[in-house]
Each structure stands twice: as C-alpha cells, then as structure tokens.
C-alpha cells in the first residue's frame, strides 16, 4: 500500500499546483494546462488507491478512464474558446473582460 500512498500524495500535490495555476495565472493556455494538471492529480489519487489488499481494483481505473474522456472534451472546448478569443481580440488572457460589471457600466 505504501506505493499507493506515494502516488496519492503526489496526486494531491499536483492537484494543488494545478488549482493554483488556474486561479493565479493569466495566460489562457497556461490556465488550460493547469486545469489538466488538476485532473491528472485527481486521477493519480484514484489510481494510487486502486489496489485493495494487493489485487487491482477495476472501479477507480474505470473512473479514471471516464475522467480522461471528460477532461479531453473540456480541454477541447476551452481551446476552441481561447482560439476564438484570440481571433477576435488578439489577446491571450481575458483579464478584466467578462468580469462582473460595476454600477457604472
């Protein structure tokens, strides 16, 4: 189990890094990558714990596969939107655009 715990701990760290990246970075591509890191972190935790009493546990592996598919779809959408944004404005970060408008719009 200790290797599983190692994987799980690494997964936590990667997840935290990814989370920080999405929230704190500016460049859209980097934020999308950071989101993927988050996903990978969660998957690592699942896979790391995917052994019960030494025998492989198929359920988390199934969950990770599903999760990867979902992450791919989400990334595809994010990239499309980022490309469209770049095409419309020439910028790579959304910055203050699309933020809540104050009373003096």
């Amino acid at each position: 189990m200790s290797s599983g715990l190692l994987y799980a701990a690494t997964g936590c760290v990667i997840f935290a890094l990814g989370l920080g990246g999405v929230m704190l970075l500016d460049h859209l591509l980097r934020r999308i990558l950071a989101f993927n890191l988050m996903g990978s972190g969660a998957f690592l935790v699942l896979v790391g714990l995917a052994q019960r009493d030494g025998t492989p546990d198929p359920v988390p592996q199934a969950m990770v596969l599903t999760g990867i598919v979902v992450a791919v779809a989400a990334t595809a959408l994010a990239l499309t939107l980022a490309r469209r944004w770049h095409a419309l404005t020439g910028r790579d970060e959304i910055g203050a655009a699309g933020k809540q408008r104050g009373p003096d719009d």
Partner: protein
Amino acid sequence: MTDTFFVPLVWLILLPLLWATLAFMRGPDRGGRLAIAGLAAQLALASVLAGDIAVHGPRNHVVGGWPEPLGIALVADGLSAVMLLLTQGVTLVLAIYARSYFKPGASPWFWPLAGFLVAGMNALFLSGDLFNLYVTLELVGLAAVGLVAAGGTAEQIAAALRYLLATLVGSGAYLFGVALLYGSYGTVSASLLGELVGNDAPLAVWLAGGLMLGGLLLKTALFPLHFWLPPAHGGAPAPVSALLSALVVKASFFLILRLWLGPFASLAPQIAWLPALLGASAILWGSWMAIKTDRLKMLVAYSTVAQIGYLFLIFPLLGSGKLALQAGVLHVVAHGLAKAAMFIAAGTLIKISGNERVLGVTGTADRLPVTVFAFALAGVSLMGLPPSGGFLAKWLLISTALAQGQVWIAGVAIGGGLLAAVYVFRVLRLAFRFSTAGDTIPPARPAAQLEWTAFALAAASIALGLFAMPVVSLLEGVAP
C-alpha cells in the same frame, strides 16, 4: 414486456440525447420543433414517474442490467421527481420562446446544446453514485458554457471562458473529493456512504467534504464565489440566461442537498452556519448590485445571485423536521419559474425597445402589457409576496427559523424581500411611466409566443402559491 422497455428513468436521459443529436445533424438553426416535441414527451414521462413515486416510493433502475459498482444505477425519489418536472416544464416553455426569439444565425447551435444540457441535468437528478454525478455535472457545465458562448461576440466569449474555468475548477475539486472518499471507503454509492461516514471520519473525509462543497458552491455561484455569474447570465441571449439562472445553478444546489442529507449527514451540522452566513451576504450583495446596475439583464442576473442566497439559509435548519427542506425545494421551484419568466420578459422588452438599459423599460406598460405583467408577477414571487410560490417558501423558512430560535435567519429572509422589492419596482415604476413623445418603442406588438410564454411561467409561479401540496407531498419520503 412493456415494463422493461418503458422505463421513464432511462428515457428521460436518452430522449434529449437523441433529439439533440438529430438537431445537430440537421444543421445550424434547425431543431426547434424537434426539441419541443421531445420536451413535451419528457414532461409526460416525468409526470408518470412522479405519479409512480408518489404512490410506490423511490424507483431504481440499473442501466443495462450491469450491477454496481461497475454499472450505473439510476435512482429517483421525490426530490428527483420535483427537479425533473421543473426542468422539463421550464425548458419546454423556454423552447417555445426561443423558437420565436432567435433570428437566424444569432445562435445557430442553440438546440443541440440545449438538448445536451437537459440530458445532463436529467441524468444528474437520477444518478445514485458520486462519480456518475461528476460526469453529469461536467456535461451540464460544458453544455452551459457552450450556450453562453454561442452568440459569438467577444464579450460572450470572455464570459464563457471565465465561466468555463470556474466550472472546471469546481468539478475538479469535486472529483478530487470523490477520489478521497473512494480511497477511504471503497465505494462511491451515495446510499452506502451515507451509512459508512460517521462522526469519527478521518481527515481525508473532511477534506473531501470541504472540496466537494467548495466546488459545488462555486458552481452554484454562492457569494463570494459568484463572480462568473453576472457576466454570463447578463450577457447571454435571454433564453440562455433563463436556462442558466432557473435550472443550471439549481442542479449543483441539488447536489449539495444530496450530499448534505446523504453521505455527509453526520458531519454537516457542524459547519452549517457557513453556508447560511454566505447566503445572507449573497442576499445583501446581490440585491445591492441589482439596485445599482443600469442594464436590465444585469439586474435580473444579480437578482439570481441574491435569490441563491436564500437557498443556503436553510442549512442550519435542516436538522429538525421537514420544513426547511420544503422551504428550500419550494424556493427552487418558485425561483426557477419566476426567474425564467423574468429573463424572457426582459429579453422581449429589450428586443422590442432596442435598449439594454433599465431606462429602456420606460413607458412599456401600455405598449407591452402582457410582458410587463409577466415581469411583475415574476417579481411578486421573487419578493416573496403572496400569493406566490416564493411567499410559501419564505413562510416556511421564517416558521422553521423561529421555531428553532434562529431569529436572524427570519430577519434576513424578510429584509431580503424588501430589498427585492426595491429593484423589482425600480423596473415597474419606469414601466408605468407615461411615455413622452419621442419614445422609440414601435407600435407593433411582438409575437404572441414571446409574450405569453413569459406570462405562463410567471402565472405558474403564482399558482404554486395556492397549489403547493403536490410538490410537498412528493417530498414526503425524502430525508431527513
């Protein structure tokens, strides 16, 4: 034999997927009639299911016959039934509205996206294990982002990107929580976890709970995690805003309720004050911004931020008796109907007057009486004035708050109603203004569908105020 084929649970998910795909294959701007037919059938299915649950109790279905934990189990209880009915009903009316609202090319893929959204939401309401809920949550989120971006303007793209990143963080946190839970207990079934998680849960479970709750709060746009909502809901086309405010945010709230009452039931009461406090802040902040903003759809979007706050006031009160749950669910239904009505009424007003500002509403009471009346009726429910569903929700909330000695919650609920009155009547006062010569509203009336769909939804939220017993009796079997 018809029993194995005609399972409402499965068809409620399959049918929208079917017509969404067909709509996509037919090309851009196509699929409206398909959607309306499909939604009508789904509404019938949901009614049958609700009737069945009312008589026989919760229904289960294991998809494909493959047993858990590798298979997917669908579960429908009273709460699911209520949410399903709300979703199909509101979306059906919104579909009728959208068919008349969209000019060709304005939002070419609205119909497939809406179909996937509904499929995702139905699946969410019917799922019984936490991981499947993650998948449905993502489906709903991606479809919603797509709808926001579908108009294609830079502002909408930016709003969509912000929404997307927020929703991905939210579901990412949720997924991590699921992973931790699986690691601790070896199952993701909601019912099993409910029994396994006790007061002596390890730190990992607390962490999981916190992450899942935080992620879902972000998706439900509870203050202060609401930053993505006003631009997304305020900037999207009216039918999209209606879908988002009325239904999508309620899906993640439904999930929070499920987790609170299910797996985390023994841990939850200790932090119940936190959502309530945030909810109260949401009411104050959202109402304040709605009073101050000068764009009409932004006003309605901030109203959503405030109204979501009400939903979280119930958490400290869920411990004893059913009233708090009834209050929350009634509020979800009433707000769903009223907010959808308000958004599409606002959409019609903006479309006809050509003016996005709140001031553009001036003098519309005589030009667009049905629409203004619909807006007013929806406002009555939002303010929590009788007779309306919003009033009953407020009554239950105040009753249970006083009964449990949480007077501040009662005070917030009443105060929130007065604040809502300020921004609702801001609009109505202008509507009743005698419009002077030189107003730009053309004398032509909009299509009947635009006006009467808003009226129908608003009237439904008022009717709920008199006929709430069916909803309440559906909730009978739901915990606590």
